[in-house]
């Protein structure tokens, strides 16, 4: 990798950034390294081979020289032997017949083409030598022959010979015949030709060469930059005191030069190989990179939402990758479709959700209006909450699914959506049947009894209808108007449908305005309390005041609680308003005499609010009003929804020490059972019974029974809405404890309360005796 990084440093970045370039460079560099290694090894190998070859050639040459010399010596020896054995020659030698000897030597020498043929006698006299010999040479020669010299290289004067000797015996040795041939440059050149390389053979006295070379080792010499291998071989010497060597030398430099063309060729092949490796890996890398580029392009297209497939037709890893990529793209597309489906559909019923409904409406609205009417039907299930609460959510969900199926079946080609909870919407036109007929069919279909999880349920539904283009030109408006119509339908009684009317919208707007104003009223001090006294008949004095809420609207004047309390209850504003009422009532009542209580109405919404206890405690603590002077009035309707919870809440209120009165007794779903289950402090008899006192005889009996019952249970009774003296008379007769009503006093302001508490103030009460 360091090699690559070095290459990268030397090249522009763009050349090394692509995969193709990287691979090309890597393989070219790898091949170059291999070529360099091969060249190095080849060069070393050739060098070693050349040296070995030279050494082997030297040894071979020396052996050849040795063999040739041996052969020569044998020939010379044989020839000299022939002469020395000749009887006549021996006689000539024995008789020192020099002319005869010389002629015999000359004759034989010529015949055998000898360079020298001479005789040495026992006294060292030499006969027949061609040339001059000094006395010492003659003596040395005689001595050598006397010592048994037989053959070898013999140096005489400046000449060197291959010489062989044979003794002349008669029969004792009387001299020696010596035959010799010159060992000159010509002879050595002939030897040199016997070897395949020029070894430049030289014969030298051993003393003239280096000691190292005499041991037979190959030595190196450098002459003017040329490297030579030199080896000396000992050869046979005629005189044992004058050893001779054959010195061979060869230039390794020249030997290697013979291989230079091969190395150049190898280098050229290597360079060609590097180019081929580069081109080849470039092409291969291109082949590899092309599918990668295709994958990259496909990935970019997929990122843009185009589920492109990539075509790679190789069977290798890249082909597998392409297959995986294509599968992944398919899977992503499938998942995206699922997610989209989930985003636009209801998970439980599989129907379209609110968002898809909006899109559908927008699409339908974008088409030009035709003579066909299209309508949005919003519906919800009556009392679905009860099903959920009593039979459990699984049953509720199953019911919703069944209803969804029915809606889909009845809607035909219409569009069905679930808006959430038990709300559904259907978009239909009046091509097959009139819209009211469709709505009617839906109500009837939904109302079919069904079995859900083993429970027999009879669902019911109400429908609000808004017409496309007519009741709104956009989805939001249409849904809002259909909802308003539904609201009205539910208020008008369940199991019916209502078309949207403009008035509904106006009313809704009014309600919304009032809601906004009510917020304003609470913070802007527009709310006030009026107090209506409760007259204790036995004590003939005011024993309590009922706090009544008044709203003084800056534009619309006084607004009746009947108009805004339901709204406050719907919006939850009743909680802060109720809180204010309790505080204000307590604050006012604390200035009153101890026997005068303050009664406050508690709305069902307020009652169910878990913060009620805290509010009451804080109000009492802040004002210092004794708890028993605070009377909370609740209505019977609380017992309908959840009697157990209501009882628990009542007991916890009672634990605070406050009084609890049952308001509007006798209306609604009055049941005697809850009178038994909770010890109310007081029962307030509904004004409808009081009004009937004058027209119906039975009413008196009812009053009597109520007062009797209350007395039996230890509860006080208060009659509301007393307007006539005759009513008062009856009530007194029947044992009612307190009265309240216009006959006695209409509600008064805080300031007026003081006057009513004075002694002797009271209605004109006729004593019945």
């Amino acid at each position, binding site marked *: 990798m360091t090699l690559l990084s070095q290459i990268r440093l030397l090249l522009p970045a763009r050349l090394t950034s692509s995969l193709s370039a990287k691979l090309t460079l890597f393989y070219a560099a790898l091949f170059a390294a291999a070529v360099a290694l091969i060249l190095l090894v080849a060069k070393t190998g050739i060098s070693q081979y050349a040296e070995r070859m030279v050494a082997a050639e030297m040894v071979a040459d020396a052996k050849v020289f040795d063999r040739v010399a041996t052969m020569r010596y044998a020939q010379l020896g044989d020839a000299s032997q022939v002469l020395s054995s000749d009887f006549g020659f*021996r006689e000539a030698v024995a*008789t020192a017949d020099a002319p005869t000897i010389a002629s015999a030597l000359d004759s034989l020498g010529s015949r055998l083409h000898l360079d020298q043929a001479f005789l040495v006698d026992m006294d060292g006299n030499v006969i027949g030598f061609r040339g001059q010999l000094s006395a010492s040479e003659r003596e040395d020669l005689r001595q050598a022959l006397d010592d048994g010299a037989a053959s070898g290289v013999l140096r005489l004067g400046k000449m060197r010979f291959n010489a062989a000797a044979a003794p002349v015996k008669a029969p*004792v040795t009387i001299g020696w015949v010596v035959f010799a041939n010159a060992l000159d440059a010509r002879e050595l050149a002939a030897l040199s030709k016997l070897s395949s390389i020029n070894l430049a053979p030289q014969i030298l006295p051993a003393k003239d060469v280096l000691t190292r070379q005499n041991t037979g080792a190959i030595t190196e010499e450098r002459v003017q930059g040329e490297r030579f291998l030199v080896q000396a071989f000992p050869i046979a010497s005629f005189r044992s005191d004058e050893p001779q060597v054959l010195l061979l030398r060869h230039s390794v430099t020249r030997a290697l030069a013979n291989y230079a063309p091969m190395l150049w060729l190898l280098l050229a092949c290597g360079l060609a190989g590097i180019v081929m490796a580069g081109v080849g890996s470039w092409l291969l890398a291109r082949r590899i990179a092309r599918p990668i580029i295709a994958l990259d392009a496909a990935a970019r297209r997929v990122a843009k939402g185009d589920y492109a497939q990539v075509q790679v037709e190789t069977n290798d890893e890249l082909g597998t990758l392409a297959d995986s990529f294509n599968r992944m793209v398919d899977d992503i597309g499938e998942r995206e479709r699922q997610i989209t489906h989930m985003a636009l559909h209801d998970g439980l019923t599989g129907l379209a959700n609110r968002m898809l409904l909006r899109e559908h409406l927008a699409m339908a609205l974008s088409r030009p209006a035709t003579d066909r009417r299209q309508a949005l039907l919003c519906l919800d299930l009556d009392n679905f909450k009860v099903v959920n609460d009593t039979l459990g959510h699984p049953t509720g969900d199953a019911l919703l699914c069944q209803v969804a199926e029915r809606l889909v079946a009845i809607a035909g080609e219409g569009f069905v959506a679930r808006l959430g909870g038990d709300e559904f919407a259907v978009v239909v036109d009046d091509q097959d049947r009139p819209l009211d007929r469709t709505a009617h069919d839906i109500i009837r279909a939904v109302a079919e009894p069904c079995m859900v999880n083993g429970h027999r349920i009879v669902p019911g539904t109400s429908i609000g209808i808004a017409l496309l283009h007519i009741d709104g030109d956009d989805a939001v408006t249409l849904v809002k108007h259909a909802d308003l119509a539904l609201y009205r339908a539910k208020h008008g009684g369940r199991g019916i449908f209502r078309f949207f009317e403009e008035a509904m919208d106006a009313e809704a707007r009014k309600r919304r305005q009032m809601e906004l104003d009510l917020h304003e009223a609470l913070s802007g001090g527009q709310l006030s309390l009026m107090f209506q006294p409760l007259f204790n008949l036995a004590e003939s004095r005011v024993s309590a005041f009922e706090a009544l809420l008044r709203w003084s609207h800056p534009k619309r004047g006084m607004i009746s609680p009947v108009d805004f309390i339901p709204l406050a209850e719907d919006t939850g504003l009743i909680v802060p308003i109720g809180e204010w009422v309790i505080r204000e009532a307590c604050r006012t009542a604390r200035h009153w005499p101890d026997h005068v209580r303050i009664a406050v109405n508690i709305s069902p919404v307020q009652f169910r609010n878990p913060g009620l206890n805290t509010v009451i405690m804080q109000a009492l603590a802040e004002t210092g009003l004794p708890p028993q002077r605070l009377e909370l009035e609740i209505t019977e309707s609380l017992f309908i929804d959840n009697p157990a919870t209501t009882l628990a809440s009542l007991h916890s209120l009672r634990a605070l020490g406050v009084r609890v009165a049952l308001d509007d007794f006798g209306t609604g779903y009055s049941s005697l059972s809850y009178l038994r289950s909770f010890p109310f402090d007081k029962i307030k008899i509904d004004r409808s019974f009081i009004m009937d006192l004058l027209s119906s005889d039975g009413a008196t009996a009812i009053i009597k029974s109520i007062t009797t019952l209350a007395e039996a249970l230890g509860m006080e009774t208060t009659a509301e809405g007393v307007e006539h003296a005759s009513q008062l008379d009856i009530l007194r007769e029947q044992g009612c404890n307190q009265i309240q009503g216009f006959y006695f006093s209409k509600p008064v302001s805080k300031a007026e309360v003081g006057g009513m508490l004075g002694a002797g103030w009271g209605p004109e009460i006729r004593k019945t005796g």
Partner: protein
Amino acid sequence: MRSLILCALSLCLVPITAQAGTVAVHVVDAAGKPVSDAVITIYPTAGVPKRPIRFPWTNEVMQKNIAFNPRTLIVPVGATVAFPNQDKVRHHVYSFSKPARFELKLFGKDQTRSYTFTTPGAVALGCNIHDQMSGFIKVVDTPFAGKTNGSGDALIPAVTGGAARVIIWHPALRAKSNEIIVPVQVPDTGTLTRRLQIATR
């Protein structure tokens, strides 16, 4: 002729010289091994007796088993040596030695040739047919001569007392004419023992 006269003279003189000793020579080579067939001759400074020389061995060199026997024979000057051939093959005895050059060409079994040696010196005998055959005849002009036996010992009795030259000759002796000269003092009586070491080929 003169030698014959001299020989007769010396024979006459022997009884006169009363004082004479024995010379015992032990010859060894460079390695100390006994050298046999080394010829010892003694020349008293006073001169050799003028009388005929006679040795106790026969003047005969036999050819037997393709060899000369004895290998070395000492003969006085003027002696005639017989060369009987006892082999089945024929021999061609020759000598190129200066004191006596002769050839006894191709004689067969039981044939005897003879030659008379008139000059003192060493005569090398050879056979022209059998190169390996080699023998020597030492022609001496002194009566005090002998050759070493296998133990390298030679005993020469009755040598004239006084200074003398002892000459040791052997064909393989490495010296000029294959001989060395040793001056000695021969006792008038008794034995002079000398150990002589010679260099041989």
